[in-house]
């Protein structure tokens, strides 16, 4: 984490941002979910979004992946404007995500779920699929090889052939991460990756997230309630409350900010006391 320590406080990343989220307003007939939220994510950065329930964290993700369309604001991924694009087109640009409540294809095996993550890699059409031999077979093999690397990376080998519906919760979370990784994302969105996990599973997941950043160099946006994990992993944190970003900065600054303490962490929070 030494690289991040050298960044100046509050500073936006110096390199051109991968993702620019600017002044986004999203409302559902009277309820304002996001009220002018802005942030940027730099290359290789792990950006965390925290805040109380209903603050608008998942709404940010749903705007990013094209599920919701905001009334105002711009969302740019590189030079590409994401607003108005359909979710599958955004996925094709290289934005992959996991969900707060696991959204796997529960009747399919782990392998098939991971293969689906590579849906837009090495594509082929219906006629090629019917005939199989030739393009379909070649491309399936190429995708299968890539998927097996994910299986190794996330230690999923023993569950490969099982329908994901039968797997324990922690493993399902990992498969979902694998499905997102299989798409070779240029930006990874993690919605509460350790929610509901025990300590051991949380440690495993933290290790995978660090591995993803260090080995694959993928920028990530993470929503998470586990403050210990967020403080340890994130390069920068944005705190949202009632659809507004109340503070964005490095973990240590955010944790001591009086507004953040009042809105989310609470007076008793002891993160600042850690050595």
């Amino acid at each position, binding site marked *: 984490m030494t690289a991040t320590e050298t960044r100046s406080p509050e500073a936006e990343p110096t390199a051109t941002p991968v993702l620019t989220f600017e002044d986004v307003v999203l409302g559902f007939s009277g309820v304002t979910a996001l009220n002018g939220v802005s942030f940027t994510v730099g290359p290789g950065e792990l950006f965390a979004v925290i805040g109380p329930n209903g603050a608008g964290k998942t709404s940010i993700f749903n705007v990013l*992946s*094209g*599920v919701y369309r905001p009334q105002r604001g711009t969302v740019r991924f590189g030079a590409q404007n994401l607003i108005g694009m*359909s*979710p*599958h087109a955004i*996925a*094709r640009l290289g934005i*992959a*995500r996991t*969900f707060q409540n696991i*959204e*796997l*294809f*529960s*009747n*399919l095996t782990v392998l*098939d779920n991971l*293969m*689906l*993550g590579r*849906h*837009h890699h090495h*594509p*082929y059409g*219906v006629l*090629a*699929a*019917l*005939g*199989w031999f030739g393009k*379909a*077979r070649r*491309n*399936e*093999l190429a*995708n*299968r*090889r890539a998927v*097996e690397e994910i299986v190794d990376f996330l230690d999923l080998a023993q569950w490969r052939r099982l329908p994901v519906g039968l797997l324990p919760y922690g493993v399902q979370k990992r498969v979902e991460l694998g*499905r*997102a990784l299989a*798409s070779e994302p240029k930006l990874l969105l993690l919605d509460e990756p350790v929610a509901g996990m025990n300590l051991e599973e949380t440690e495993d997941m933290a290790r995978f997230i660090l591995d993803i950043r260090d080995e694959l160099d993928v920028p990530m946006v993470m929503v998470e309630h586990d403050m210990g994990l967020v403080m340890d992993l994130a390069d920068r944190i944005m705190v949202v409350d009632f659809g507004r970003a109340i503070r964005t900065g490095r973990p240590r600054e955010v944790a001591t900010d009086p507004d953040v303490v009042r809105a989310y962490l609470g007076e008793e929070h002891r993160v600042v006391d850690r050595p």
Partner: protein
Amino acid sequence: MTTRIGRPLLYTAYEQDMSLLNTPAKRGWTLILGLVAVSLPFLLQDDLLVVMATAFVAAIGAIGLNIVTGYAGQVSLGHAFFLAIGAYTAAALSGDPDSTRLIGFGITSLPIWLLAAGLVAGLAGLIVAPLAARLRGLYLAVVTLGLVFIGEHIFKHWRDLTGGVGVGRPAAVPELFGIQFAVDGATFTKAQKLYLLMFVLLVIFGVLARNLVRSRIGRALAAVRDRDLAAEVIGVDVTRYKMIAFAVSSFYAGVAGALLYVMIGFVEPGSFNLAMSVQYIAMILIGGVGTISGSVLGALFITLLPRVTRELPAVLPFISASSAAGGITVFQVETILYGLLIIGFLIFEPRGLFGIWIRVRNYWKSWPFSH
């Protein structure tokens, strides 16, 4: 391959794992079933062969329904409509061009009218598909139900094409490489030839469908079925895949419809009704939703059922062969059996006959141990 004896799940290449017959057991069973199927025409009576040939054609139709309903999860009650489109496309193409009563083009070559029947029905499926993009579950079922009634009306009144109610028209004429399949030949009877033809066609369309469902297309269809939001977010264009599902399914229905009446040589417009759609739903429910081999099993089961119930009066005296004799008739028994079987399978084995096979297989895998 010798190193794999006793280790059926040891794969040394992804290709072995991905192949259709990826275990020695599957290869063995396929060989045995293939041999049995090819030897049946020389063992069975002609009337049974015709029933079997009809069952093979029904299996092609059931595979089609399973692609849209079993794999893509879009409940369709409109299968009879697409079967009808296939049947009339083929019948019209191969019909007598000199007929003053009916439309006919005199193209009796089987590959041409079969492909055309599939394509026209597939096109009709594509036109209907946008509905599926906006509706789901029961709503889609009701809309596709509407198709059957619209179709029934059109086919009953378009006399130039269908011959009208109670009259009908001759079915497509199957001719391939100069061989007429629908007439008795010197070496083979009509029934034997039709049986073999339909068997070969079922194998072809079955393998194509298996290829489709093990490909990225099949996975995307299953993703749309299991969780359409997640499918969309990982990059599957849900609308597009619903359209593909409907188009491929209707293509299969068209092919099946074109062949279905070749055996009796006659198409009657009243037969493409809701009961026919329900029959196909019964096939995939009883055979196994979301499996190709299940579709074949279900189609064989449902098509052979009436043939079996017809034997009942000889065994059970309280069942009569016709309504004139009083008591409960074979037709009533048949309807009751349909209902009971569908309910029974839904409650006890939702995976259908395919699920029963999986259970039997797993039992023998661990035999003589119970776990």
